[in-house]
């Protein structure tokens, strides 16, 4: 028990060592005048900017707008990805019909979609939702297909011997077995969604965390830029850790320990 705790503490120390070292080096570089504060403000300045942004509620306002956009787009992307992915995995015909489309559309980078979507949907909320939808759709789609297709044929054989109907096969064998992979797709999808919202907001928006960063740069407020970037990273890690914890809880059978 004691050694286990010791190991846990060592693990935590090791994982924070690099960020802490960087912050110390950074403070030193700025303090000694090696780097101009217009390019890289001191960690202390950024922390106090972050604090004032938090206190005034501005940060939370922009953040919550971005988070809502992500949730809306991600919900569509996750739903679309799992549904279309399942159809493609279960039906060869659907796979043939959509397969070519997928291989043409998938390599298009997110940033290339933004001007097209603005043309189609304007600069309002819809174009942002669409960007996030596309960004989160692909990883969910591909991981769903992969998960279903890699169902253990030996388990399928067992179900065949037991004369199970196709619907039972799908709900009781294919989908549970694909769940860990689908979940991985969801995790990749939401981090991609978070990346996309910031990108979209930097190009065309009047609110949101991406907009806040972009605007601060135009006003030459580097501390705000860094505070915003830090927040993006922080929320990103929270989302991923949250989903990982959920996955471990729901899919404990797939973890060997």
């Amino acid at each position, binding site marked *: 028990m004691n050694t286990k705790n010791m190991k846990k503490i060592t693990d935590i120390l090791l994982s924070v060592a690099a960020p802490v070292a960087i912050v110390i080096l950074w403070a030193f570089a700025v303090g000694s005048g090696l780097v101009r504060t217009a390019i890289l403000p001191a960690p202390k300045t950024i922390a106090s900017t972050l604090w004032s942004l938090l206190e005034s509620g501005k940060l939370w306002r922009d953040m919550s707008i971005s988070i809502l956009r992500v949730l809306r787009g991600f919900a569509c992307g996750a739903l679309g990805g799992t549904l279309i992915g399942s159809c493609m995995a279960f039906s060869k015909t659907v796979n043939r019909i959509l397969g070519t489309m997928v291989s043409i559309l998938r390599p298009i980078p997110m940033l290339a979609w933004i001007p097209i979507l603005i043309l189609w949907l304007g600069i309002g909320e819809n174009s942002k939702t669409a960007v996030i939808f596309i960004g989160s759709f692909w990883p969910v789609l591909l991981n769903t297909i992969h998960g279903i297709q890699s169902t253990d044929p030996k*388990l399928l054989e067992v179900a065949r011997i037991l*004369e199970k109907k196709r619907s039972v096969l799908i709900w*009781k064998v294919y989908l549970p*077995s694909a769940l860990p992979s689908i979940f991985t797709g969801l995790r990749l999808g939401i981090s991609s969604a978070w990346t996309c919202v910031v990108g979209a907001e930097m190009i065309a928006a009047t609110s949101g965390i991406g907009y806040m960063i972009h605007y601060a740069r135009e006003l030459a407020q580097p501390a705000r830029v860094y505070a915003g970037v830090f927040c993006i990273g922080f929320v990103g890690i929270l989302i991923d850790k949250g989903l990982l914890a959920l996955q471990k809880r729901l899919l404990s*059978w*797939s973890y060997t320990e």
Partner: protein
Amino acid sequence: MEQKQIQLTIQNVSKKFRIDKGTISVLENISLEIEKGEFISIVGTSGCGKSTLLKMIIGLDPPTEGQIRIDGREVVKPTIDCGMVFQEARLFPWLTVRENIEFGITRPVSGGEKDQLVQKHIELVGLKGFEKALPKQLSGGMQQRVSIARALVNHPDILLLDEPFGALDALTRINMQNEVLKLWEHEKKTMVLVTHDIDEAVFLSDRIIVLSSRPGQIMDRIEVTLPRPRERSSDEFLKIRSKIFKYLMTNADESVNIDQYL
């Protein structure tokens, strides 16, 4: 005298596989009649097609020539009249012991009856108290017990066992053989066991079918009439054992001097 009833008929069955441009003959001209309630073992060296034979009996793979009939009906696809246990337990890792066994039930039964059926089979294989465990929490032997319970819960007429204890350690294997013997005496099912473990075959079977190596052909059918439970070190037991051993060794490699093994 009790009337003998033929349950499973294998008639002139051959199996060929196409590999690249050629064909490989795996089984040749197998004919066999298995009585209701009989315990029969099929032994042979690896690659002699004994597992292929089981796959054909259960209807996963059709024979190239010949016919397999269960109770007079030709086997064309898997049916729940025939249960199967594989070398690996093949449990669904996301289901508990109870749920895995419940998955075995395909016949329509009421909820209460279902619970009873599952509970009965959990107890039958000695897993009481492990109902809620996941497969990953069980040992190999326990997993195989669940797999046997899952195959039995449908009340199949015939139980096929494809090297079910091959992956278990020696002690667990002997334990499981005793368990299967008890199950067979209790459930009175026809059992067909494929194995390369000669001791296992002699310990359990009424009749042992010895297959030659590829293409698999029946070399001999050996009746074992020793009373059960059989003493593994008795003279009779060892005599049958070495007879089968001789068959397999001479067949496996002509150049091996078998006397050095006996």
